């Protein structure tokens, strides 16, 4: 028994953290709300140079051939920095499926996205993977897309209306895509929660009312302690799901549902708490808080919200024959 990550896995996580700290400060997230593509630009290229974008692509196709357990912490970091890119959709879901047919996915010159059914960054992507309806892979060039207005302005949503060159996903591809995507979103929700907690701890330590930092008030302390507790008891479920997918555990999809349900609840609590503890400044559009909060809302509901995944757990424990 050993519930820890290897030194290599942690070092890769640290390297990605360093790159994102440099290339994806809050100003980049904010800029993605109004630029042409909704994307970061430099951060994506830097991740491509590191090999991160081809992390799960087979080595025979130029990738690193890594596992869910190797990339789960990277996804968590991409969430921490609210990276405005199809990170999960490309790295965990799309790239391994399309790498054999499309060059450039390892470097990131070719961007893959994925949706179920709404497809983020569809207009800016080169290849689209749709899980529902009609699971298929389509090229961006041959796709007819409807552009939608998303609450998270850095996650530009589209709907795939038709395609001239789509090929259907196999059942195996669809299942792997769906559970890897859920794992990735769960990890990003953990990262987002950590960021929201860090930001809020810093704010309540600085902000004074009644002559004292508001973080010295028990009401604030207890709010933030609750977020820290939620994180403590959500992250292990996410890491266990990564382990189970990596080892093709028969219960892997159940473990993914448990992880997503808990990570989504954790994210919602972190976002709600961060807003309340910031007070009016956090309610301001000019403040960065809402960029993280709206990403939580997006990922919490995408590919099955907490209730949907809990219902899967309920079916597994209550209805399955003993």
């Amino acid at each position: 028994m050993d519930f820890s990550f290897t030194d290599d896995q942690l070092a890769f996580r640290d390297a990605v953290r360093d790159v994102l700290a440099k290339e994806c400060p809050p100003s980049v997230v904010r800029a993605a709300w109004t630029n042409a593509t909704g994307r970061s630009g430099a951060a994506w290229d830097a991740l491509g140079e590191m090999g991160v974008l081809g992390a799960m692509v087979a080595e025979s196709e130029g990738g690193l051939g890594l596992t869910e357990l190797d990339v789960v912490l990277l996804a968590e970091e991409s969430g921490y920095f609210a990276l405005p890119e199809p990170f999960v959709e490309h790295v965990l879901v799309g790239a391994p499926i399309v790498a054999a047919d499309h060059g450039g996915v390892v470097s990131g010159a070719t961007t893959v996205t994925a949706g179920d059914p709404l497809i983020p960054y569809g207009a800016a992507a080169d290849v689209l993977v749709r899980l529902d309806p009609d699971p298929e892979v389509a090229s961006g060039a041959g796709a007819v897309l409807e552009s939608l207005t998303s609450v998270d302005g850095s996650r530009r949503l589209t709907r795939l209306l038709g395609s001239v060159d789509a090929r259907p996903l196999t059942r195996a591809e669809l299942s792997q895509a769906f559970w890897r995507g859920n794992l990735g979103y769960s990890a990003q929700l953990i990262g987002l929660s950590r960021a929201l907690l860090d930001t809020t701890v810093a704010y309540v330590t600085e902000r004074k009312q009644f002559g004292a930092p508001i973080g010295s008030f028990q009401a604030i302390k207890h709010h933030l302690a609750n977020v820290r507790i939620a994180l403590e008891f959500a992250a292990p479920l996410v890491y266990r799901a990564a382990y189970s997918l990596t080892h093709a555990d028969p219960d892997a999809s159940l473990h993914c549902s448990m992880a997503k349900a808990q990570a989504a609840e954790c994210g919602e609590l972190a976002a709600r708490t961060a807003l309340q503890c910031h007070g009016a400044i956090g309610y301001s559009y000019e403040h960065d808080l809402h960029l993280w909060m709206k990403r939580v809302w997006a990922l919490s509901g995408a590919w099955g919200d907490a209730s949907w995944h809990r219902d899967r757990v309920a079916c597994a424990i209550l209805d399955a024959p003993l």
Partner: protein
Amino acid sequence: MDLSWSGPEEAFRADVRAWLAANVPADPLPSGDTREGFARHLEWERTLFDARWAVVSWPEEFGGRGASLWEWLIFEEEYYRAGAPQRVTQNGIFLLAPTIFEFGTPEQQQRFLPKMASGEESWCQGWSEPDAGSDLAGIRSTATRDDAAGGWRLNGQKTWTTRGAFCTHLFGLFRTDPAAERHRGLTYFLVPLDTPGVTVRGFGRLDGDEGFAEVFFDDALVTDDLVLGGLDQGWGVAMATTGSERGLTLRSPGRFTATAERLIALARNGGERGVDPAIRQRVAQAYIDAEAYRLQTLRTVTRVVGGDPPGVESSLTKVFWSELDVRLHEDARALLGYEAELESSWMKGYEFALSGPIYAGTNEIQRNVIAERVLGLPRK
């Protein structure tokens, strides 16, 4: 990461399971928080001890098996899964014993540990006083030097002492330096409850059982060999014990995964209540939380085995397990519907679970600790 058990660990589990299957009483024992039930539970403790299952993680010379933390987790999982009796000796073997191992003299270890493990001597905790609850440093009970008698005279009152009316010994803090304040000047004493000048009065807990006691000290004489960890060092010594109470050793995940399994069984046999979508969601969440607690423990034990001792994070654990325990039983109440009005093991468990967020430092205190010492928020 490797979330599988080794061959020897699986063999250990098989041994535990087989022994429990052959020895756990078929009918539940009466509550260990009554005088008669306590005696019956001590008989069970003796059975455990004779088979060397009472204190698996202790060294063999004191009656244990020298089991690893992993094996201890496995033992606990199997123990609760088997529905084995509550451990009425737990305040001794899980709270006091780690302190005696750390601070006790070799003579104290030999004198107290084997009889604690066998249940021949049973220990209650003398922390709280009428004016010192969550604010434990407000302790007023005193120990005054009596050179003529060759020891210390204890005076004062302890209260909320779990199973104090049935135990033979008490461990607790007394103020030895009357000039010192708060955490200073306290000393940790090991007190036989048959010492002249000690009076114990049991009283009822929420469930009506006589599981509480108040303990009065009136010039009770204790000798120097009953001081644990040095004069005026009591606070540091006691904190080592409360660390155990809040953290890993007392509330192993096996308790909650077993309760979650029973909740699932209740839901599966629960008729129309078991198919209510809202209740199904609650049961699923309870299962997820119990799993989360188990997995978080595996992470913690991985770190501890790697040489990183558990620290202030134990406050996170205490809040989570105690509130999880309440939720598990609330879910059971929901499944029982109108039958929850009847006495049952679930309702007994519910009444017990409600003490969790209060004892060992209320969850409000724990949340303060988390905010200040984990998150680094200002005290003032």
